[in-house]
């Protein structure tokens, strides 16, 4: 048996997490700001008001800066697939390749073509076509996100495929099952709506800074109205899609769901922990240990949110490990056994084929297929290795939800104050709006931590853990590139912030906006 290098896996994971999280700093603002710019341009085209043109151009510039700095940062993830995660790349086959190829074509034709018309087209193309370009840039950016999220959703809930034991690849059986899986739809809608909220917070926050400085007041107020209305509507949508996403996680990734709630022992009429402070890491060997130093709960709500039934049973970590016959839960111990049978059957299938023993090969193939759903479990002996980092998942989830509520309230307060014509007088709200910008990024990153860390150790849910996905390469090379990425991305981020701040300051000093 080959011994896997834990340090190699950890460095490979750290590198992927680093690049994905840096990439995700740029993406959500592109997703939402593109629509906000399109809305602003629509108002300009409809009204002919020069101030709206100025507003559109300003936010378009910030959109352009973010787009330019962020563009192609995702390509690094594809490099990593081929180098660090070659087993995974091969295993997922065309299921990952097809959506990524479509994404590339979409990004190229829609975004690249129409972005040029959007930026270069002022006074050079007809206003209607210019406006159409703005909307197509927004739609194109969001469609690009669709395909990568479909690929990601397949990893969380692999459907529409069949594993070919001769090629070691998963082959797509039904593209539409992959595209329209509930996991993919929920992931896409929740992710893009989170980008919309982040962008709205960004617009409201920057506008608040203008008002704090008492510069370009009308310009700032108009921007703020668009940002806050867009943000409010997106927030409601975010809550709806988040609710549905959580139910989907409950159905397909119950361990992640239990970790998100810090639920160790399953129960009917499960309460929802609104705020909680974990005392220590949950210890599966010590079930009687109280895990929360403090918690505020709402009775029955978790059961209701998970299954739309306040009496529903929500399995905890221990139920998943040890199984629960009453509620029809197979234990991880049993899944590990089935996984080992699948791996052994695959091995014997291969040996039988080499020996040209078709009967034995067929027998093992049948056994393999019957147990393939648990294939990944076979790499483990201890089921406790299949528990994600509970406190990090729990806190990330609660931070994301809490901040989401903060954004919703902020948008409402901002709109009320604007319509009562008091927004400039309540300066603390302006400061809160300004300082909410980094909080939106924290919430967005926390969402990814929940999604990706909460599903550990799986790369492909139940089928492929990180340890079998990683390439057998030199750990030193991974460490070197980790630091190259860390430095490169940090420089890019500093450049983005610097250029954006200089543009914002420059616009605020341009009094033509009054």
């Amino acid at each position, binding site marked *: *048996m*080959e*011994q*896997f290098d834990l340090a190699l896996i950890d460095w490979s994971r750290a590198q992927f997490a680093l690049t994905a999280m840096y990439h995700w700093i740029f993406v959500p603002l592109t997703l939402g700001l593109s629509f906000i710019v399109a809305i602003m341009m629509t108002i300009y085209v409809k009204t002919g008001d020069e101030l709206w043109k100025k507003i559109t151009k300003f936010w378009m*510039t910030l959109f*352009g*800066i973010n787009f*330019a*700095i962020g*563009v*192609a*940062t995702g*390509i*690094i993830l594809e*490099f*990593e697939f*081929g*180098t*660090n995660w*070659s*087993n995974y*790349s*091969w*295993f997922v086959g065309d299921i990952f390749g097809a959506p990524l190829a479509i994404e590339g074509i979409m990004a190229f034709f829609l975004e690249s073509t129409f972005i*040029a018309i959007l*930026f*270069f087209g002022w006074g*050079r*193309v*007809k206003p209607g*076509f210019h406006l159409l370009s703005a909307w197509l840039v927004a739609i194109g950016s969001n469609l690009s996100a669709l395909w990568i999220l479909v690929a990601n959703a397949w990893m969380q809930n692999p459907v529409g495929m069949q594993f070919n*034991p*001769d*090629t*070691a*690849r998963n082959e797509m059986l039904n593209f539409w099952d992959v595209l329209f899986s509930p996991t993919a739809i929920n992931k896409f809608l929740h992710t893009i709506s989170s980008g919309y909220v982040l962008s709205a917070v960004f617009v409201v926050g920057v506008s608040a800074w203008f008002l704090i400085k008492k510069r370009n007041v009308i310009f700032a107020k108009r921007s703020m109205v668009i940002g806050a209305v867009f943000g409010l509507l997106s927030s409601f949508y975010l809550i709806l899609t988040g609710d549905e996403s959580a139910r989907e996680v409950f159905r397909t990734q119950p361990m992640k769901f239990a970790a998100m709630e810090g639920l160790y022992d399953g129960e009917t009429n499960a309460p929802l922990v609104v705020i909680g402070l974990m005392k220590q890491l949950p210890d599966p060997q010590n079930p009687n240990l109280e895990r929360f130093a403090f918690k505020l709960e709402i009775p029955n709500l978790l059961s209701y949110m998970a299954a739309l039934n306040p009496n529903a049973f929500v399995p905890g970590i221990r139920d998943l490990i040890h199984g629960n016959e009453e509620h029809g839960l197979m234990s991880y111990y049993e899944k590990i056994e089935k996984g080992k049978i699948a*791996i052994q059957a*695959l*091995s014997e299938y*291969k040996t039988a084929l080499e020996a040209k023993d078709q009967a034995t090969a067929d027998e093992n193939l049948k056994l393999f297929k019957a147990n393939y759903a648990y294939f990944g479990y076979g*790499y483990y002996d201890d089921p406790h290795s299949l528990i994600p980092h509970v406190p990090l998942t729990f806190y990330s989830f609660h931070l994301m939800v809490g901040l989401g509520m903060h954004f919703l309230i902020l948008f409402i307060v901002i709109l009320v104050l604007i319509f009562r014509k008091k927004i400039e007088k309540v300066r603390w709200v302006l400061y809160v709006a300004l300082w909410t910008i980094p909080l939106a990024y924290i919430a967005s990153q926390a969402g990814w931590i929940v999604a990706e860390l909460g599903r550990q150790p799986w790369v492909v849910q139940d089928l492929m853990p990180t*340890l*079998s996905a990683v*390439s*057998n*390469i030199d750990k030193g*090379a991974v460490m*070197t*590139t980790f630091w*190259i990425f860390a430095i*490169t991305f940090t420089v*890019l981020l500093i*450049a983005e912030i610097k*250029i954006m701040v200089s*543009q914002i300051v420059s616009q605020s000093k341009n009094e033509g906006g009054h």
Partner: protein
Amino acid sequence: MISISESFSNFFAKKTTALSFNYTINHIFGYLKFNYCQMTIFHRIFYFYRDGFRRMTVGKQLWLIIFIKLFIMFAILKLFFFPNFLQTNFSTDEERSDYVLEQLINKK
């Protein structure tokens, strides 16, 4: 009819000289409001982009960043640090399949 070079001059002088109108091209691609209508659509697109790039202010700085970034990614990272593991080490898909199967069966 005026020559292409004349139409360039007109364009850069920002004149609005009435030019003969190539109906077919403008019917299909009529959104571009350039004066140099006798040029092919490819010329128009070329000059649309060229002039767009020339007029950029903050965009020039951004393009510089994009080029540096792409250079680091493709000329350094991809070339020296990110070879495709299976493509580099194996020459056929069969060998790659066998290797991955071996990894799936024996990795522990």
